[in-house]
């Protein structure tokens, strides 16, 4: 049995997304900027895709900029707000300690340029509160950028409350919604979101395409110069097959969210309940406000990469925040930010589900994971020391 449980990394494309793309490779291949009929056919498809994405987010089509993915959208949103802030002598940004690197590295770049960033603490409930944002806002704050939902541990942040606070304070609000789009109900107007980033391949769309919603009137800076595409804000001939695939995938995800997500959440809850039985383990992330598909654990006494390799040998595709899987010496910054010490952060496992997973697959995971954890503990000197009292349990 092969179980794909790494949907937070990427998803299989839906048939609807594939079908929505295929006409734009060989039949409707025009450049939307061309005046002739072949180009105008492509332009119509582009407009329709933009309208569709806008409907899913509750905004106007002209507020959608198509990008190469979530990272580009994050970079553009944050840099735009920073430049706009600097013009008004505002160079303070509020974010969280467990953002995606697309956000964190952009913020670090700004810090080197003299901006000041407040990273909100995420230890309590592995989440932030809207009050933390309120307390951090200063007269010189030019941006609040907090993720909609965390990619590693699944915590869903209080976005609507934060949006209301930002609106009241007059501070632009960006949210990286890569894990949320297509999985949670989003309405940028009701939630007072000024900018939002999303990525198609996280909701059964194609890779290499994403979108940035930007509230009408907010001044964007360009990352890519060279043409009048995307209202002059993102040059380059549009990735029309990708954009049409993304629009179809998002529409499909939003239309079926109310039937799919409760089923996914039920599978998630079975996994959480089952894996919690493993002694000296701990769930990572907010238990209540949680992505429907996210299961994240730390298991004491073992290391994540060897866990992943053995799970893969049993047909289970998962991921880990251990150092050995990241190629660096430190485990995931997210796990460290929520207060996991290095020793246990190395033993992390993330299983991320989608509506394509089945109850039989959950049974398989629940059979295999405890066996593999137990085996790795049996050959671990750390586990022996914990069991013989030479080392104190952390979890």
């Amino acid at each position: 049995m092969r179980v794909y449980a790494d949907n937070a990394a990427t998803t299989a494309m839906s048939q609807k997304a594939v079908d929505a793309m295929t006409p734009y490779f060989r039949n409707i291949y025009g450049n939307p900027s061309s005046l002739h009929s072949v180009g105008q056919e492509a332009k119509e498809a582009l407009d329709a895709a933009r309208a569709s994405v806008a409907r899913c987010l509750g905004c106007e089509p002209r507020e959608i900029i198509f990008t190469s993915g979530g990272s580009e959208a994050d970079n553009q949103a944050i840099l735009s707000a920073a430049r706009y802030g600097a013009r008004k002598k505002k160079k303070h940004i509020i974010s969280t300690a467990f953002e995606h690197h697309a956000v964190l590295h952009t913020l670090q770049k700004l810090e080197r340029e003299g901006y000041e960033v407040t990273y909100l603490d995420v230890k309590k409930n592995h989440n932030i509160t809207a009050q933390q944002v309120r307390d951090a806002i200063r007269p010189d704050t030019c941006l609040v950028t907090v993720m909609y939902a965390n990619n590693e541990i699944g915590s869903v942040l209080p976005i609507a409350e934060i949006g209301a606070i930002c609106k009241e304070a007059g501070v632009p609000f960006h949210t990286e919604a890569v894990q949320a789009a297509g999985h949670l109900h989003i309405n940028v107007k009701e939630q007072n979101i000024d900018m939002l980033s999303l990525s198609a391949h996280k909701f059964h769309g194609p890779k290499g395409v994403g979108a940035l919603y930007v509230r009408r009137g907010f001044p964007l800076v360009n990352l890519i110069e060279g043409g009048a595409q995307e209202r002059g804000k993102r040059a380059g001939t549009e990735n029309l097959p990708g954009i049409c695939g993304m629009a179809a995938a998002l529409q499909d995800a939003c239309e079926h969210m109310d039937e799919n997500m409760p089923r996914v959440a039920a599978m998630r809850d079975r996994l959480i309940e089952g894996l919690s039985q493993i002694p000296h383990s701990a769930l990572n992330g907010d238990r209540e406000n949680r992505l429907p598909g996210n299961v994240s654990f730390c298991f004491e006494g073992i290391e994540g990469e060897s866990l992943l390799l053995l799970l893969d040998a049993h047909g289970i595709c998962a991921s880990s925040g251990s150092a050995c899987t990241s190629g660096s010496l430190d485990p995931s910054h997210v796990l460290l930010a929520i207060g996991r010490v290095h020793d246990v952060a190395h033993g992390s496992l993330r299983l991320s589900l989608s509506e394509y997973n089945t109850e039989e697959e959950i049974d398989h995971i629940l059979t295999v994971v405890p066996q593999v954890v137990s085996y790795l503990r049996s050959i671990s000197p750390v586990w022996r020391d914990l069991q013989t009292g030479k080392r104190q349990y952390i979890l």
Partner: protein
Amino acid sequence: MALYSEAVMDHFMHPRNVGIIEDADGVGEVGNAKCGDIMKIYLKIENDVIVDVKFETFGCGSAIASSSMATEMIKGKSIHEAMTLTNKAVAEALDGLPAHKLHCSVLAEEAIKNALKDYYDRNGIAYDPKEFPDCEHCAHCE
């Protein structure tokens, strides 16, 4: 998985010499949990020959495979031969390790030397301390 050679996967999936030796003549432990890998080696030595060796490892696939391969390479060898085992030889025997995993083979070499040092210490055998690396201060964990 293409990350590792077949030899690494074989030694990871079917590690040789796993376990402990209760009445070991030398025990060595290197690495720390903070860095994400710890190796512990147990030696049974008779007439300067390593008659048995066991290991326990907390770490990634290449750490477990390196421990397994290194123990295979010293089993039945004299302690003098075991002292000449290099991390390079362990990595080569595994048909290579990814660059960022080479420290796993270094740990295996150090764990064995650490166990031999323990054997020397227990038996009052003189040795040159320079022959034994100081794992606690290696660059990997800093």
